Structure formats: C-alpha cells, structure tokens
C-alpha cells in the first residue's frame, strides 16, 4: 500500500501580484518501508517539496495538488489543525547542518527529553520524569551512541557534526514516525562520517520498517542506499525508477548528464580528459524557461520542448521528456 501518494503537486510563490510556479506538477508515491531518494541540484525545489509534505511552508507559498494522500487520508481536505496532528505524529524530518538545528544554550539531554511525547508516559509526575529520562537514553542507544551519560550532559558545540546528526535522528525517532524525511543529512561532512550516517539510516529503515525519503544533490552518494530514485530539475519532475534503471539506463538527457558528469572512483574515464557537462547553469526562479525547463541546456532539445512533456511510464520507469533516450539502448 502507498503510504504517501502525491499527484501533480504544484507550489506557487506569491510575491506581490506575481505568481511564480516554483514546483510544477511533481508526483511522488512511496510504499511502506521504502527507501526513496530524491535527487536534484540546488534550486530544483526538492527541499520545498519536503517542506510541503511536512506542511511547514509559510503564507508566501501556495500548495496545490490533484491528490495528496497520507495512508488513505486526503490531507488537502483536512483543516490545518487536523493535518498537523496527523503529520506531527507520523512524519519526522532531519535537516542539514545539525549543529545549527540544535539549541546551543541547552544540553542535549534536555532537548531530547522535550522531544519525548507524553502519551508514552504513565503514572505520577515523578514516575514520568524518570520514564522521560529513560526514554532519552534509549533513543541515544537506538542511534548508536553508547556513552549516553556524557552525551546527555553536553552542549551541541561539544559534539562533532556526525554525533549531532545522530542526536537529531534520535529526536526524530522519539515519536516513532512512519516516514522520516532526511534533507541532505550529510552535507559538508567527512566521507567516513557520511557513510556512518547513511548506514544508520539504512539500518533503521530495515529494522523498524520506517520509510525514508532521502534528499540529496549528489546522485552517486545515493546509489548504494536507495531502492528507488526520483530526479527533479528546476521544480519539474524529470525521471523516476529503481536505482538500477536510473543508473544503467537513464532515459532523460539530464539524468544521463548527471550520471556521466561525476568522476567515479571506479570509473574508466581517461584521467584529465574533459568530462561531459551541460552548458549553462540552473535558471533562477525569476527567469524560468517555458515548457521543459531543461530546454536551453539540453543537447536533445527540439521545437516541441517549448511545451512541457507528459510523463511516460515504461514498466515503472517514469520519464518526462519528448525525446527520451529509450530508443538508444
């Protein structure tokens, strides 16, 4: 069963009397226990999409969708309060730069205890205080921190970046979410720490059957961890499929360029040869091209690309392109 089913979600930025379509009809569906990757460069609207799922966008943004279902509930029809109740119980999110997300003036212990919700606690208030402490320690054990006493007593600046991210994950786990959204959890981290965090997230996904939406700008980092990948470019849906499909037979020219552009540790490129790169850069929000937004940079662009392409489905491999690379394989 799909726990999250989003069809044609649009996010519009309202500034003055101008309306800018920041995210243009993106679809995303997630099954239970799935580990899904969401890839896009900066400005592709992937963080916006995550924030729209969480419902934390402010008044400047308008969210509109044909279908927005969470475990069979239509979230668009619910009032804000009802929606908040469902989402805060079932979905949790962690952010990049964990140091800046934690309160620098309070200890980790106090922040973790705050995250534990009251429903899990029983008895009189002194019993509750004790249970709360126990729950915090248990959460730290879950994310692989063994020295819980030291960690609970310390302030965020005393911990390393990777430990802070673990604490963030622990806080996210406090309400036992069904879906965890990780928005670039390892940006600006060392590669050894990066793989530690990914391993932790993957094991939580396996053991707790928690669905995971992993957002990143780096396609090559995702490949080992995800089952399925969705690629976005400049607010538009590009391609979705299993990791293997995306990597070995990308149908969209943009995905193809992403796969080719990164020099891999085990690739067979001639050293110091020119890499394939798309010309130009990502368009800014004020000057979006019409139709397919990759158009001006795309090597296969033709006249038809001024109209936005429809999403085509080839055995579960979705692609949104008029001139997909399917025939070339």
């Amino acid at each position, binding site marked *: 069963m799909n726990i999250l089913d989003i069809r044609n979600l649009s996010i519009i930025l309202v500034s003055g009397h101008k309306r800018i379509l920041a995210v243009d009809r993106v679809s995303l569906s997630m099954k239970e226990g799935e580990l899904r990757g969401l890839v896009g460069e900066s400005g592709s609207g992937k963080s916006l999409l995550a924030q729209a799922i969480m419902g934390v966008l402010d008044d400047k943004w308008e969210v509109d969708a044909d279908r927005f279902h969470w475990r069979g509930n239509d979230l668009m029809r619910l009032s804000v309060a009802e929606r908040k109740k469902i989402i805060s119980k079932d979905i949790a999110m962690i952010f990049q730069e964990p140091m800046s997300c934690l309160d620098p003036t309070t200890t980790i212990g106090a922040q973790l205890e705050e995250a534990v919700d009251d429903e899990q606690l029983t008895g009189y208030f002194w019993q509750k205080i004790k249970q709360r402490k126990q729950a915090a320690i248990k959460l730290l054990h879950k994310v692989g921190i063994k020295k819980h006493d030291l960690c609970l007593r310390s302030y965020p600046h005393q911990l390393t970046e990777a430990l802070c991210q673990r604490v963030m994950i622990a806080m996210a786990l406090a309400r036992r979410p069904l879906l965890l959204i990780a928005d670039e959890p390892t940006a600006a981290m060392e590669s*050894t720490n*990066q793989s530690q965090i990914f391993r932790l997230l993957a094991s939580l996904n396996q053991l707790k059957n928690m669905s995971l939406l992993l957002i990143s700008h780096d396609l090559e980092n995702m490949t080992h961890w995800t089952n399925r990948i969705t690629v976005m470019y400049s607010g538009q849906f590009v391609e979705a499929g299993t990791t293997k499909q995306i990597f070995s037979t990308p149908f969209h020219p943009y995905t193809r*360029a992403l796969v080719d552009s990164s020099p891999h540790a085990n690739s067979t490129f001639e050293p110091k040869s020119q*890499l394939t790169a798309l010309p130009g*850069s*990502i368009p800014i929000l004020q000057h979006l091209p019409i139709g397919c937004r990759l158009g001006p940079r795309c090597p296969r662009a033709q006249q038809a690309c001024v109209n936005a392409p429809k999403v085509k489905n080839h055995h579960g491999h979705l692609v949104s392109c008029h001139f997909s690379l399917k025939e070339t394989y």
Partner: protein
Amino acid sequence: MKPLIQVNNLSKEYKLPGHIFNRKTFAALFPLSFEIQAYKTLAIVGESGSGKSTLAKLLVGAESPTTGNIKLNGQELQTGNFKQRCQYIRMIYQDSGTTLNPSLTIQKLLDEPLKLNTTLAEAERQVLISETLRQVGLLSDHMNFYPHMLSGGQKQRISLARAIILKPQVIILDEALASLDPSLRSQMINLLLDIQQQMGLAFILISHNIGIVKHFSDDIMVLDNGKVIEAGKTAEVLAKPSQKYTKKLIMNQHFQLFSR
C-alpha cells in the same frame, strides 16, 4: 625537468596555552618534503584535522612555518614577503560566496590584486580584467555586477578569475569543488584542466572526493594526523594502497558507489 615548487622539511607547531615552565606544543604538521612540476597536479587527501589546511596556509604564506623552506623556481620564498608570494601562489576556497566582498563590483574585486601587485595603467587593467573574465567563461559585461547577482557556479568562476589574473604559477584549491552542484562541478573541472594546459599551472588540490582526485591529479599525498603516510603517483596509490588508513578512505567511497 626542473621542479616548479620544492618543499623541504616543512613543519608547523602551535604553542598551547600553559605555564611558562610547562609549555606544550602541538604539532599540526610533521616535517614533509615534496616537489611539483609545471602542468602537474598534486592532490592532498586526509580527514579534517590531518593538517591539509595547515599545509595550504603555509604554502600560501598565511602562517609561518616552524622549520623548513619553500622554493619556487629554485628561489626561496621568504615568510612575510607577500608581494613575491601573491604573484605566484594563489588560492581558491571552498565557499566562494563568502570570500567575495559583497560591497564591491566584480571589476573592483578583480582590480584590487592588480593595483597592489602590478604597475599597469588603468586602461590596461581594464583590458586584462575583461580578458580574464572571458577566459573563465564569463562575459565582460559581468564586470559591473555585484557578487550577489551571480549564481554559485559563477561566483566560483570569479574566484578562479581572481586567482589567475596575476598569471601565477601555482594555484591551491582548498575543497574548491566540494560545494558545487554536480553539473557545475564538471564544468569547473573542465575549465580548470583547460587553464592548466593553457598557462602551465601547477595545482595543489585538497579534497576528500576520491573520484575527483583520481580524475584530476598526477600525484597524491595522504595525510593523517600531520604525517605523510603515503605518497606517489595517483593511479598507483589508488590501485594498490599500502596503508590501512588509505584503504579505509578508498573503501568508504567505493562503498557508496554503485558497482556497475
């Protein structure tokens, strides 16, 4: 062939705060020596705290070394002689947005190193700036822009322009490619390789992305806790790492990659 830059026994120690009879020092970098030739790239790999940024600071002259010396074309670089150093050794940082002064236009930004280090007249500087901008793939119209009007990739190109405008011989890239988006990163790599061929530059690449190191560099040096634990030709070291630490570093990245 004569080496372009020669480093002998370079080391750095920091004094830790303490009592006068109980002074302790912290060795950030143990003595190391290496050579780089023109048209070549040396990659420095290591985790944070391994001393790679200290080495970059020593080379560029921001810190004075405890022991050892640096020779450029056989001539020793004195500490404190910034005129000489700024001309020949330039640096590009990780976050290019914050290294550009937001209150200056691109033209003024690029004019500053020229004013300080050359005796060119204003018209000549003007021509040189627009030429350099074209060399890094921007237009001379960008001269009148302010840094905030440019995208991340363009800002990185401006800092490259600022680095090459004095016709240096060595450029130090301190994680300069890490924060860029993949498609811009490959553009930047292509541009750097082009400029290296045109100008005969030597690059010192500080990075933790093994993929880029493998593609970009000729020689590699692996640092751990301030010590060089492995050095040699990139292809050989990556194919047959002898140290456990190097193996771990490579494994970590291989592990993340898809086996196609």
